[in-house]
C-alpha cells in the first residue's frame, strides 16, 4: 500500500495536519503536501478512470506532466473540473472528487469498454458512426456526447476575480531550477532587469531532490544562498506559482500566476496573466521523464521513477512497500537507492540495457539490490493496483522468466527536454541520437524583430542532464543573452558541480522489443486519451504517415496534458512502424499554453461593467433616472424608449411617436459623430469623400451627404454644415464616428498627404439635443436668445447664438419629417439645456423619445439607416439616392467602382416601400420570394426587407426593402413568407409613406 513514511519529506510540515475530502471521505495530509502526495499518503492510489476504456488510473508523475490525476475541485462558485492533483497544493477544507466514472470510482459501468478494448481501436468512432446518415443527429450524436469529456463543466458563475499584468524586462528566465537560478544570477550581475519565474511553489527543481554537490556544498545550500543573492538584487524579480505559458513573436511572453489556489482565503485575484515583453528570454524548463511501453504500464502503482523519488524525498510518501524499478538509464537507480535508504524494499532493478556499470549501478549493487540486465517487464499484474510483474528478456518476445510480487513499479525510459516554449514561436529541434531526445537546435532559434534569436534554452531543457553541464550552460547563455560580445562578461564564473558519472542510456520504445500484439494492446502511450502502441501502429498501417495525421487519428497527445509523457514514445513507435528515422517523422506542433490556464485569467478584469468601455452622453444620468430602456449602439447605450408606469415598451414607442408628430419630442442626439474638417484643401477633400459636392456649400448652410468606400459601397451618411470659409462640420452615424475619422485620416495621410486638411473628432465635446415636432419652434422661442423663425433659420441652415443663456449652435435639420432643430452645446452645458427644455416644454407637451421612435419616424419618411438599408454590399444607387450623387465631379471615392458593369446592372435589387395588404408587420430580415427555384433547388428570392415597423401614424405595418426591379413594379403585390411558412402579401409602394410633400418640415 502507499503510505506516509515515519520520517522524511523536505517540503511538508508534520506539525500542521490538514484535513480535506476526496469523494466525500475526510482524509488528512500535511501543510506542504500536494493533493497527489496527500492522496498517496492515505493509500488512495486509484484516483480516476481513463477516458475511453474507463480503466482504473493512479498518479504517474509528480508535476505538470501528470496525465491521470485529474479531479473536480471545489464546490459551487469555486468549482473547477480537470484540476491536476500533482500541481494542486493541499489546503484545509479542500474538496475533490474523481471524474469519469458511474456510479462510483470503485465500481464503474463504463469499465465494460475495457473488456471490448480490442473492438475500440483508433479510428473506431470514425468507422462506426458513419452509416446510416440518418442516425447522425438523434442516435450517434447523443451517444457520443454522453461519453465525451472528462470533468463536468462548472454550472455556477465564477466567484473569483482575475487580472492582467504587463511587465517589460531585459531578460525573462522561465524555470526556477538550478539552471534558471544560475542564468538569472549571471544575467542580473550584468545589471540587466531580470524576471525569474517558477511554476511550482519551490525553487531548485530536481537538484533539490537529488542534492548533488555544487561548489563543494550540497545543492540545497547552493539553492538557498543563490536565492538569497537574487532576492537582494534590486534588478531581479522572482515569482513562484507562475508558469511560462507561451512565447510569441518579438519577445512577447505570457505567464500564468496562481496567487490564491494554494490559499483560497487570501484576498485579491485568484490568477494573474502576465503579459511580458522581454529583450531576451532564457528557458530553463528542465526535462520530463518518459514512461516505458510495457503491458500494463497504466495500472495504478506504476509511476515514473523520478516521481516516486519525489514523493519519498519531498513528502515522505511511499507508493508501495516493494517497488520494482525498470529502466534504460542510470538515473532510475537513484530511485532504487532512495527507496532502500528510506527502508523500503526493491526486489529488483530491471535494466533493459545489456550492460551497465556506472557508479550508480555499483552503489545499488553495494546496497544489496538485485540488478538484472537485459531484462524488462513482460506484463504488470494486478488491475486496480499492481500486485507483481512478470520479467522477460528485453531482446525477446515476452516469454516470462520469473514473476516478482510487488505493489509499485518505478519506470524510466529516459528524459525529454521541455522544448515547448522554444518551439512556440518557431525554434527548431534536432534529434540527439545518443540521449534519444529532441533538443533545441541553437542554430535555428525563434527570431526577433532584428532577425536574431531571442530565446536561449539552458540546462536539462537544452539536453544537459548532468549538474555541472547544466550550470555551465546556464551561465554561458545568460552572458550571451545580455552581452553578445562579452567573453568575460560580468556574469561571473559558473559554479562547479560533482555528480555521479552515468553510462549512456539505450532507447527502448517497446518492452520487450518483440512484443506480441496482445502485449502491445496493453501498452499505453497516452494515458489520458487511452492511446496504445497498437493504435499508433494501426494508424501507420492505415496510411496515416504524417505525425500530425496519426496524432489526430489516434488522439495521441490531444488530451489536456498535450502529450507531455506520450509524444516522443508515440512518434518513436510511428517511426518504427513506418521504418523511417525519428527525426524524419518529426514532432507535432507545440502550442501554447504549456499547461492549461484558466478562462478567468484570459479574460482578466474584462467582465461585467469592465467588459468594454461604456460611453456615456452628458444626459445619461437623466435617462437612467427617468426609466429609459437602453439599446447598445456602438459603445454607447442609447435610450430605446421611456416607458411610463403601466406601459409596455411598445406602448411607449407608440406614445413617443405620436407625441413627437403632434407636439414636441426631445431626443438625446449627442452620440451623433461630429468631425471637424478644416484647412485650405478641406473642400476639395470633402468632394472626394462625399458623393455630392460639399465645397460649394455656403457658410451657414447644411447638406446631406453620402460616403462610399473606393469599392463603391455606401459606408456612412449624415449632414454636413459649413462653419466658415475653411471649416466644415461632418455629422456621422452614431456608430460611425471613429471609423469615419479613421477613414478620413487614412486617405489624408496615405493618398493626399500634400493636401492641407486637419480632421478632429469632437463627438464628445458637444451635447446635441433634437427638439422635434410642430411646437418645437415655440419651445425654443420660449427659451429665447436666438431667432429661430422660419425666415431667420430656414430648413438646412444653422445659426449660432445664446439659447437660454447657453452658447449654442442650432441646426435646422430633420430625421423625422417634422419641424426640427438640433441644438449643440458644449458637453458640460448639455444637462442644463436638457433640463430647461424639459421644464419649459412641459406646458407644450414635450416628452423625450428614444431610438425606436426615431427609427419608426425615419422609416415613415423613407429615410435610410446605415446598417439597416446598407450591409456593405449596397451602393447609393440601390437606395434611389442618385440625387445625392454628383454627375459633374470628375472623381470621388467609389465613383469608378460604381461604373462597373455589375454595379450598373438594372437587375440589382432596389429600395422600395412595402405596404402589407392586411396591415401586418413583416418580420425583420424576411425575404420576398418569386416563382420557381434556383440552381440549388431553393426558392427564388426577389428581395429582402431592410426595415420593418408598426407605424403608429398610419396604424399599420410599414417596411422598406430591396426588391428586384422594385421601382418599376409599383403597385405590384409580392409574397413574403414568415418562418412558419405562412405568406404575407405586400404591395410595392413609394418608401415615403408620410407627408410626401414635406409640408410639415416648416412646422
Amino acid at each position, binding site marked *: 500500500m502507499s503510505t506516509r513514511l515515519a520520517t522524511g519529506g523536505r517540503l511538508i510540515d508534520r506539525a500542521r495536519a490538514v484535513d480535506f475530502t476526496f469523494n466525500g471521505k475526510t482524509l488528512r495530509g500535511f501543510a506542504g503536501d500536494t493533493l497527489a502526495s496527500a492522496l498517496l499518503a492515505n493509500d488512495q492510489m486509484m484516483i480516476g478512470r481513463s477516458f475511453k476504456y474507463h480503466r482504473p488510473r493512479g498518479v504517474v508523475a509528480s508535476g505538470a506532466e501528470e496525465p491521470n490525476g485529474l479531479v473536480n475541485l471545489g464546490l459551487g462558485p469555486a468549482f473547477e473540473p480537470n484540476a491536476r492533483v500533482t500541481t494542486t497544493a493541499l489546503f484545509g477544507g479542500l474538496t475533490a472528487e474523481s471524474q469519469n466514472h458511474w456510479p462510483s470510482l470503485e465500481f464503474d459501468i463504463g469499465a465494460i469498454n475495457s473488456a471490448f478494448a480490442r473492438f475500440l481501436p483508433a479510428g473506431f468512432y470514425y468507422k462506426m458512426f458513419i452509416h446510416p446518415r440518418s442516425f447522425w443527429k438523434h442516435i450517434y450524436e447523443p451517444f457520443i456526447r454522453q461519453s465525451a469529456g472528462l470533468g463536468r463543466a462548472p454550472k455556477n458563475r465564477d466567484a473569483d476575480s482575475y487580472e492582467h499584468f504587463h511587465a517589460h524586462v531585459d531578460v525573462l528566465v522561465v524555470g526556477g531550477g538550478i539552471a534558471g537560478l544560475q542564468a538569472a544570477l549571471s544575467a542580473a550581475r550584468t545589471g540587466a532587469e531580470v524576471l525569474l519565474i517558477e511554476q511550482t511553489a519551490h525553487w531548485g527543481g530536481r537538484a533539490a531532490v537529488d542534492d548533488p554537490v555544487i561548489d563543494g556544498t550540497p545543492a540545497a545550500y547552493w539553492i538557498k544562498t543563490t536565492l538569497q543573492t537574487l532576492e537582494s538584487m534590486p534588478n531581479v524579480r522572482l515569482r513562484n506559482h507562475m508558469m511560462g505559458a507561451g512565447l*510569441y*513573436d*518579438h*519577445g*512577447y511572453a505570457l505567464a500564468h500566476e496562481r496567487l490564491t489556489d494554494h490559499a483560497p482565503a487570501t484576498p485579491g485575484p485568484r490568477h494573474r496573466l502576465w503579459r511580458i*515583453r522581454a529583450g531576451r528570454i532564457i528557458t530553463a524548463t528542465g526535462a520530463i521523464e518518459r514512461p516505458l511501453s510495457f503491458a500494463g504500464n497504466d495500472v495504478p502503482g506504476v509511476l515514473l521513477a523520478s516521481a516516486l523519488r519525489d514523493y519519498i524525498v519531498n513528502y515522505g510518501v511511499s507508493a508501495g512497500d516493494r517497488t520494482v524499478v525498470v529502466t534504460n538509464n542510470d538515473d532510475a537507480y537513484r530511485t532504487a537507492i532512495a527507496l532502500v535508504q528510506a527502508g523500503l524494499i526493491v526486489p529488483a532493478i530491471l535494466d533493459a540495457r545489456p550492460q551497465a556499470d556506472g557508479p550508480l549501478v555499483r552503489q545499488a549493487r553495494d546496497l544489496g539490490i538485485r540488478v538484472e540486465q537485459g531484462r524488462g517487464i513482460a506484463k504488470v499484474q494486478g488491475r486496480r493496483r499492481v500486485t507483481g510483474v512478470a520479467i522477460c528478456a528485453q531482446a525477446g518476445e515476452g516469454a516470462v522468466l520469473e514473476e516478482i510480487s510487488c505493489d509499485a513499479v518505478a519506470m524510466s525510459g529516459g528524459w525529454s527536454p521541455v522544448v515547448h516554449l522554444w518551439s512556440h514561436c*518557431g525554434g527548431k529541434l534536432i534529434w540527439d541520437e545518443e540521449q534519444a531526445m529532441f533538443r533545441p537546435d541553437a542554430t535555428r532559434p525563434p*527570431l*526577433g*524583430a*532584428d*532577425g536574431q534569436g531571442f530565446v536561449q534554452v539552458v540546462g536539462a531543457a537544452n539536453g544537459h542532464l548532468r549538474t555541472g553541464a547544466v550550470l555551465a550552460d546556464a551561465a554561458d547563455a545568460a552572458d550571451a543573452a545580455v552581452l553578445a560580445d562579452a567573453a568575460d562578461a560580468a556574469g561571473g564564473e559558473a559554479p562547479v558541480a560533482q555528480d555521479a558519472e552515468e553510462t549512456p542510456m539505450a532507447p527502448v520504445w517497446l518492452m520487450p522489443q518483440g512484443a506480441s500484439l496482445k502485449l502491445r494492446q496493453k501498452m499505453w502511450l497516452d494515458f489520458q486519451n487511452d492511446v496504445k502502441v497498437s493504435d499508433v501502429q494501426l494508424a501507420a498501417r492505415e496510411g496515416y504517415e504524417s505525425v500530425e495525421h496519426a496524432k489526430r487519428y489516434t488522439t495521441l497527445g490531444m488530451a489536456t496534458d498535450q502529450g507531455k509523457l506520450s509524444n516522443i514514445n508515440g512518434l518513436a513507435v510511428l517511426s518504427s512502424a513506418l521504418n523511417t528515422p525519428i527525426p524524419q517523422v518529426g514532432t507535432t506542433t507545440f502550442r501554447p499554453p504549456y499547461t492549461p490556464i484558466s478562462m478567468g485569467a484570459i479574460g482578466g478584469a474584462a467582465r461585467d461593467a469592465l467588459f468594454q468601455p461604456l460611453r456615456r452622453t452628458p444626459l445619461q444620468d437623466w435617462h437612467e433616472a427617468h426609466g429609459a430602456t437602453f439599446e447598445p449602439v456602438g459603445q454607447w447605450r442609447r435610450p430605446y424608449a421611456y416607458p411610463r408606469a403601466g406601459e409596455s415598451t411598445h406602448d411607449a414607442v407608440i406614445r413617443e411617436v405620436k407625441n413627437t408628430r403632434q407636439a414636441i419630442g426631445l431626443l438625446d442626439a449627442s452620440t451623433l459623430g461630429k468631425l471637424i474638417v478644416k484647412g485650405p484643401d478641406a473642400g476639395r477633400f470633402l468632394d472626394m469623400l462625399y458623393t455630392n459636392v460639399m465645397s460649394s456649400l455656403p457658410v451657414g448652410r447644411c447638406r446631406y451627404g453620402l460616403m462610399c468606400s*473606393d*469599392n463603391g459601397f455606401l459606408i456612412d451618411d449624415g449632414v454636413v454644415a459649413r462653419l466658415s470659409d475653411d471649416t466644415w462640420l461632418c455629422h456621422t452615424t452614431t456608430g460611425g464616428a471613429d471609423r469615419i475619422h*479613421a477613414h478620413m*485620416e*487614412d486617405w489624408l*495621410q*496615405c*493618398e493626399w*498627404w500634400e493636401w492641407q486638411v486637419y480632421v478632429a473628432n469632437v463627438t464628445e465635446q458637444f451635447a446635441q439635443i433634437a427638439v422635434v415636432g410642430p411646437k418645437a419652434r415655440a419651445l425654443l422661442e420660449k427659451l429665447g436668445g436666438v431667432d429661430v423663425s422660419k425666415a431667420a433659420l430656414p430648413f438646412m441652415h444653422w445659426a449660432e447664438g445664446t439659447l437660454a443663456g447657453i452658447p449654442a449652435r442650432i441646426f435646422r435639420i430633420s430625421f423625422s419629417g417634422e419641424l426640427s432643430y438640433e441644438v449643440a452645446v458644449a458637453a458640460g452645458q448639455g444637462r442644463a439645456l436638457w433640463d430647461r427644455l424639459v421644464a419649459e416644454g412641459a406646458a407644450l407637451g414635450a416628452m423625450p423619445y428614444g431610438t425606436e421612435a426615431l427609427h419608426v419616424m425615419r422609416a415613415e419618411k423613407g429615410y435610410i439607416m446605415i446598417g439597416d438599408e446598407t450591409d456593405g454590399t449596397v451602393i447609393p444607387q440601390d437606395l434611389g439616392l442618385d440625387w445625392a450623387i454628383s454627375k459633374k465631379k*470628375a*472623381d470621388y471615392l467609389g*465613383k*469608378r*467602382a460604381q*461604373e*462597373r458593369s455589375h454595379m450598373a446592372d438594372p437587375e440589382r435589387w432596389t429600395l422600395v416601400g412595402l405596404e402589407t395588404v392586411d396591415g401586418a408587420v413583416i418580420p425583420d430580415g424576411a425575404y420576398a420570394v418569386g416563382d420557381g427555384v434556383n440552381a440549388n433547388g431553393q426558392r427564388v428570392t426577389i428581395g429582402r426587407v431592410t426595415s420593418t415597423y408598426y407605424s403608429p401614424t398610419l396604424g399599420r405595418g410599414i417596411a422598406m426593402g430591396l426588391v428586384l426591379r422594385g421601382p418599376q413594379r409599383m403597385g405590384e403585390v409580392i409574397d413574403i413568407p414568415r418562418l412558419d411558412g405562412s405568406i404575407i402579401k405586400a404591395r410595392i409602394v413609394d418608401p415615403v409613406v408620410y407627408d410626401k410633400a414635406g409640408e410639415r418640415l416648416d412646422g
Partner: protein
Amino acid sequence: MLTLHCPHCGTLAAETELTAGGEAHLKRFGPGSDDDSFEGYLFMRENPKGVHFERWRHSYGCGKWFIAARCTATLEVFGTYPAQSSAPPQHIRDAITARRPGWGWRDLA
C-alpha cells in the same frame, strides 16, 4: 505579437497599439481607368513569403500611418518609414538588401 517602431512618434509600439492596413504603395486608379487597372488596384495583392511592405497605423498612439518593411516568414523587421512615401526610401532598401540579398517585391528589387 509584433513590435514595430513608429517613425512618427519614435516609440516601439506593440501590435495591440496598431491597426494593420494591408499592402503598401498601392497606386489608386479612379474614373477613366480600364477594368484591369481598377481590378488590380482594388483587389490584387501580393502574398509573399519573405519581404513585404505593409501599412500600419499607430491607432492607439499618435494616430499616424507608417509603412513597415518586414519578412512575412521570420517576422524580421527591416525598417519602418512614414506613409507619406510613394516608394520605399533607399536606406530601407539597403537594409533589406543587407539581410536578404536578391530580394524582390512587385517591380522593386
